[in-house]
């Protein structure tokens, strides 16, 4: 009995972590879908989300829902600008140039923002937007922060699902991801769709940043690196380019981390996550949901 409630508690812990990874992984996977680019700056957009929320809460004392909306808008804007400035001029360049640029953008954001006049390299305490409460459900305890993470993630995924499968933009986006040239011949505005993809991905990362800040109330400019890498692994695990793959991958990675810490040792945790990456790349490079047939 005790063992069951212990495992249930760890599952709750794992889903909390996994939900945030899923939100970030979506951005990686969507951008990869339309551009075949691993957008390494994505983890830094996540960091920006946390900082924007920090300023909105601590300097302006805005209510939580406004914080979410404004943070998403600012992150969307940043995502849009990054694409226009750094990636668009390289649309026809070799893929490797694009990849190197992505790394450059990521480093630029981290080190530029860590200047003393901007965000500083310090650890900044993230303000509590509301009082944290713990509910004891006898089998496991859950906090209102965890509930918020589950609910917000679920809502975001639902909206994303509607957007991609029920709107013209979604159809266009899927068409671009399937075959850019043909989609363009069919009258789809490629540039617009790519911008749109970046905007959606960045705003999801922004949401992830706020939730992360609330759950682990300490932010700094380098906070996006590890979650970024792990979400990227989640996207690969689920099958890069596949939306529901990113979500499942994120949850698996979150649960894996927690269970390795719980039953082995936290020192093995990151090692195990990277072994998963190697194993996926070696034995099933298209990921869990990927199809074996290569698109040409």
């Amino acid at each position: 009995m005790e063992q069951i409630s212990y495992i249930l508690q760890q599952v709750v812990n794992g889903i909390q972590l996994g939900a945030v990874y899923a939100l970030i992984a979506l951005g990686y996977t969507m951008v990869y879908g339309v551009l075949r680019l691993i957008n390494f700056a994505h983890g830094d957009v996540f960091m920006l989300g946390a900082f924007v929320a920090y300023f909105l809460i601590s300097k302006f004392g805005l209510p939580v829902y406004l914080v979410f909306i404004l943070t998403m808008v600012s992150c969307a804007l940043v995502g849009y600008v990054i694409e226009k400035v750094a990636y668009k001029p390289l649309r026809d360049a070799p893929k490797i140039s694009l990849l190197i640029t992505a790394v450059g953008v990521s480093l630029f954001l981290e080190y530029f923002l860590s200047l003393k006049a901007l965000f500083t390299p310090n650890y900044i305490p993230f303000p509590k937007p509301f009082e944290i409460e713990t509910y004891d459900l006898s089998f496991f305890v859950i906090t209102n922060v965890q509930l918020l993470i589950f609910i917000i993630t679920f809502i975001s995924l639902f909206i994303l699902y509607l957007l991609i499968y029920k709107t013209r933009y979604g159809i266009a986006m899927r068409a671009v991801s399937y075959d850019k040239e043909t989609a363009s011949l069919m009258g789809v505005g490629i540039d617009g769709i790519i911008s749109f993809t970046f905007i959606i991905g960045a705003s999801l990362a922004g949401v992830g940043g706020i939730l992360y800040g609330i759950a682990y109330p300490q932010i700094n400019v380098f906070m996006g690196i590890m979650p970024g890498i792990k979400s990227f692994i989640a996207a690969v695990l689920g099958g890069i380019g596949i939306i529901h793959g990113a979500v499942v991958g994120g949850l698996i990675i979150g649960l894996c981390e927690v269970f390795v810490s719980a039953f082995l040792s936290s020192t093995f945790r990151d090692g195990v996550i990277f072994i998963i990456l190697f194993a996926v790349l070696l034995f099933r490079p298209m990921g869990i949901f990927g199809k074996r047939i290569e698109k040409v």
Partner: protein
Amino acid sequence: MCEKNNKLTKRGDKMKKLFLVFMAVAFLAFPSFAKDTIKLGLIAPLTGDVKTFGESAKNGFIIAIEDYSKSGKYKIDPVIADDRNDPTEGANAALKLITQDKVIAISGPLTSKVAIPVSDIANNNKIPMITGAATNPKVTIHDGKRKPYVFRACFIDPFQGTVAANFADKELKVKTAAVLYDVGNDYSKGLAEYFKATFIKKGGNIVAYESYQKDDVDFSALITKIQVKKPDVLYLPDYYNKVALIARQVREKGLKSTLIGGDGWDSPELIKIAGGAIVGGYFTNHYSPDRKDPIAEAFIKRYKEKYNTVPDAFAALSYDATMILLKAIDNARSLKSEDIVKYLNSMKNHKGVTGNINFDKNGDAVKSAVILKVEKDRVRYMTTVNP
């Protein structure tokens, strides 16, 4: 009336001129009137995850130089470098201070993980160094051999970990404890080991001994793991930032154990970040601002006037370390490193803000520790433990 005044000012002018001439002559005749300038370095984490340590240390360093300047033999040119609590940054800062700025001696660094590599560099370059607050034994000792140019103004972790374990056993009268530490940090690892060893020796039971890594922010899995063991106390030997984060998650998960820690807790940010979660916790420290002692009181008063806040242990220790260095520089036979070190080795009973300081054969200060309790808006002095 007017004329008289005029006369007076004229006479005043004359006096002034005379005085100036006299001064000029004196200046030429006794060149020692112009103090020689020497450079003194401080390495501290001014930014990064433990920035309040660095800020406090810098304040203590500056006050020490001001106090010294009133009567000291030399004019001090302070050179302050930021190590960001990163060993590589610290090593670079030390090399810069030694090779480019040519400092005579170094005060700092404050954290063991930076102080260990920096002390090697200082020692190899024969530059006297006193760390204010780095408590790991490896700062002054390398492979069982003393680093002759390195000293410290604080006690070491075997003592600190033992004090914490004794306190848990004797004062809190607890039987079970859990330890959660940073596996990549010498300071945290050392304290965890010494606490564990003493607690077991006293007949206590360590029910969980878990580690995490530097950049971790999610401790939920480990806390849940510890929670099933229901320990009476949870020992958290880390710096305030991490401790605050862990404390919050501990309480959110409903784990009720008493929290205990080390001197890394000493920061105004601890209560700010952790809020109610840390209240009721205890930690071992070098000094308490409640200390009744003329030197400490004078320092606290000056510090409050200048910086508008109560000095923490890092400010006090940095002040002491810097004062000892300056005293050695003044009293040594020459400014040669060897002479400064010789004086430091022979120094007896330096009266510091944090207590009487005597170096043992390893260059470590033999000092008592205090135990502080975290309350809602301040820390309160509980007891003093002598070595």
